[in-house]
């Protein structure tokens, strides 16, 4: 039994926006795999909910005319993983969201919910950061598209205006074309776990596979929100593909990240992991790109 004050069911995006304005205190509910857990814990007990779960127009993955990939916010993790467009162009995202929780959670949980929660450990988030994804928000005055790095404000807070809902995640064509990506979820067990540290890397090699043309690396749980390691990215651009480069790159991330000591893991261990995962993910990307180290 859940302690819910009221549930308002939105039938369309427009309707959802209307409900948002009508019930400003209400919490948006998508798959419910986070919100309902919080209600059970008492954190959001007694709240009003606006369910957007029935808005089918927010589901599915499509390729826009300009080649951008558009993922409706209500698309479930398991649908993303199995989607042909995702598999073909951004398989790394499909793999990343396949590491969320359990099969049941991946069937009900949505990418919109995962990002709107604003938590640093969300398995989709670091990969979306590494892909330079855009977030589409729809409000009473129309659509607003912002980079995912601006969408995250601080732990638990994202940039959604009182009349808005998140409607899609967009991966621009130039951000995935010729890149290979790899995500490593480091957790304490192989299923049903929260990420201790997550690392997502995208690599674009030169045509001869000898030089790193561009590398994007993002972390979950290396700070209060997902983040990129820009120093490391700058460092590696134009460098030769080699063990030494990879090792040096992995150490450079330490100047970017800011993990903390908590009972879930010490700062020292998280820093060690961050470098190790950077090295391993980079190496895997090189392999996927047909390069050699």
């Amino acid at each position: 039994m859940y302690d819910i004050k009221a549930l308002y069911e939105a039938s369309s995006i427009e309707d959802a926006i209307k409900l948002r304005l009508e019930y400003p205190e209400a919490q948006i509910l998508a798959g419910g795999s986070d919100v309902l857990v919080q209600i059970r814990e008492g954190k959001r007990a007694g709240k009003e909910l606006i369910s957007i779960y029935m808005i089918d127009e927010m589901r599915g993955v499509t390729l826009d005319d300009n080649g951008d990939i558009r993922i409706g916010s209500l698309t479930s993790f398991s649908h993303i993983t199995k989607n042909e467009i995702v598999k073909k162009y951004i398989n790394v995202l499909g793999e990343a969201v396949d590491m969320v929780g359990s099969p049941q959670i991946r069937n009900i949980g949505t990418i919109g919910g995962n990002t709107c929660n604003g938590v640093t450990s969300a398995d989709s988030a670091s990969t979306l950061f590494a892909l330079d994804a855009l977030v589409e928000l729809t409000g009473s005055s129309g659509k607003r598209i912002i980079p995912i790095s601006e969408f995250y404000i601080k732990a638990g807070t994202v940039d959604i205006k009182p009349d808005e809902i998140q409607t899609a995640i967009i991966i621009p064509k130039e951000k995935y074309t010729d890149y290979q990506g790899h995500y490593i979820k480091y957790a304490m067990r192989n299923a049903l776990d929260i990420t201790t540290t997550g690392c997502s890397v995208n690599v674009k090699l030169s045509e001869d596979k000898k030089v790193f043309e561009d590398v994007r690396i993002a972390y979950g749980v290396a700070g209060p929100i997902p983040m990129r390691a820009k120093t490391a990215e700058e460092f590696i651009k134009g460098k030769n593909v080699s063990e030494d480069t990879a090792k040096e790159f992995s150490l450079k991330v330490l100047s970017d990240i800011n993990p903390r000591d908590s009972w879930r893991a010490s700062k020292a261990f998280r820093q060690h992991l961050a470098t190790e995962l950077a090295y391993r993910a980079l190496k895997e990307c090189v392999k996927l790109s047909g390069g050699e180290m």
Partner: protein
Amino acid sequence: MVVGKSIKRIDAFDKVTGRTKYTDDLCDKSAYIAKVLHSTITHGKVLSIDVSEAEKIEGVIKIVTCFDVPKVYFPTAGHPWSTDESHQDVADRLLLTDVVRFYGDDIAAVVAENEVAAQQALRAIKVEYEEYPFVLDVEEAMSDSAPLIHKNYPNNILGHSSQSVGNYEEAIKEEGLIKFDNWYDTPTVQHCHIENHICYASMENGRLTVVTSTQIPHIVRRVVGQALSLDWGKIRVVKPYIGGGFGNKQDVLYEPLCAYLSTVVGGRLVKLDSSREETFVSQRVRHAIRSHIVTYTRPDGTFVARKLELFSNQGAYASHGHSIAAKGMGCFRQLYPCPNVEAECYTVFTNRPVAGAMRGYGIPQAMFAVESQIDDIAKGLNLSPLEIRKKNLMPVGYKDEFSKNVNYFDTFNQCIEKGKKYIDYDRKIEEYKNQSGNIRKGIGMAVFWYNTAVWPISLESSSSRMVLNQDGSISVQLGETEIGQGADTAFAQMAADAVGLTLDKVNVVSCQDTDVTPFGTGAYASRQTYVGGLTIKQTGEMLKMRILDYAGKLSGIDAAELDIVDNNIITVSDKKFVMDVAKLAITALYSMEDSRHITAESTYQIKSNAYSFGCCFADVEVDIRACKVKINDIINVHDCGTLINPALAEAQVHGGMSMGIGYALSEQEIFDSRTGRTLNNNLLDYKLSTFMDHPHLEAQFVENAEPTSAFGTKALGEPPACPVAPAIRNAVLNATGVAVNKIPMTPHVLFEEFSKSGLI
């Protein structure tokens, strides 16, 4: 004969299809819902509780606080009662307490019409505390400056005992001895049975009925009586199917409180369903034990003198108390008999959640320490871990003077041989020498000591009743309980053989109801099949005699000349068919001349115990820089005597191995040193290993029929969890050269250990 056959569990189809009714399924939906308010401080006193706001919430029926309940202290351990006052369990619990001894202690309870109202009421209750300093660690708790958790227990010591063999101090003077001096730590873990504890209670005609998810219905009846100052006969306890217990439900949990709450709402039906968070914090956990072992050996690996100091973290209340540490200490001098042994153990109160019984009852902790040190010694002396064990392990013919247990067979060597062969030990030991690089493989093993049942420490008796039905089938009742382990199936198999029936003619009454079920103390100490077998055999033979007596009368053949085989009454001498049991049964019940309801009931008092030994081999792969251990292969080998049902036995071992893997690598409750709160009171943050974390679990057996047992069987319930953690730990040692002396060997621990040893 069906004993020894892998027949399907008799409850399998209903359980798999969801038809089986558990406590919550049986509770009438009209029940009031009870919820417990837990303390948000770790040590102190409740000064006041303001329920005025909570009482206004719609649907709230009654709020009871620690100031309302009777000040009657009661024990909770699921031990058989002792009529000798000095052996009785410590009575230190109240229904609700005004003195808080751990974060999560029970201080008030709400009864409401529904769960939401009950939860809202809990949030609206205001509590004022006076806080005392608290202590979580045993060493600190024993110091003179530590806060005292219970009156009458100076230095917080609940129990202290010692054992001495030979003369340790003299023996260590021998020249040329090598000394090994090590400390080993095991964590606070929880049982994580899938069904959280749940019970409901109501009153009718001045009697209380409590339906509960328990391993020990007859003990629950006694404790509810003690707690509520009611005549025990006025209480009826019913135990339906339960979703596991592993020892947590070998304690009386919320049954007394739930029963009491029913009495304060006019005997109305009240249900108390625990959450997972409450299960982790406010029920029972495994004792965290710190062991210090000193071993003096000769260079050839012969043990000359050994010393054990064992410190057991009891948490806030006595529960099963010192029995756990004492059991661990008891095995120390037996497993590796050494002419000079000194051992002492302490059980110490701290402000942690309460430790009670948990699968293995002190032995998983003891085995981690003992078996880790054996490998440390082997490494120090450059001997093979197998060689040093074989040199020092309990020999065949060893008899323990206290329990009178005898090591009848060459079990250890037989089990070790099987394990070695399966895991390809000799080849791998060679292959894994001189590794370098980030990924390293290792092989390790551990043996374990266990015994069956609790004799001679406590009462050991088992009762059964068999009733011949009209169709020639029998109904069988025992005080021993099915708790998911498959006991009912084993009982059915043994009863079929004892009477001479086929399995389909045996109906085991699974549910225990203290109003009608024969007395029995319940499921614990890996004793169900052992003690149940003895009473089943005895009662089965009584029933058979009565059937044959009637058959003799009907057939005119001397009953002594008759036997029952596969539901048929036949002559002993020429195996001639006389009549079938079904015909006899219907005749006996409806005969106008000599109508009899053929039944039998008996109690068997068991005055023996049996060793149950075995071993575990683990083959692991360590990713050093990732600080992770992957188990590539693992096997447990057990000698639990004759297998009643090999498939069930295997399943039992799988479950225990899974628990052992979690114990070795991931499971532990974590306490906030500033607040005393349990930080990971849920299945996300408490890392119970999942399906994805297990390799194939291999279970094999050596079947030496136990001479003291009716069907040759002995303990298998708990033993599988005992050797796994040290085997994995020793495999990590073999792989990396790093001796990790605490479990779980989480990545956090391995990061520290590998950094210290220069591997990272």
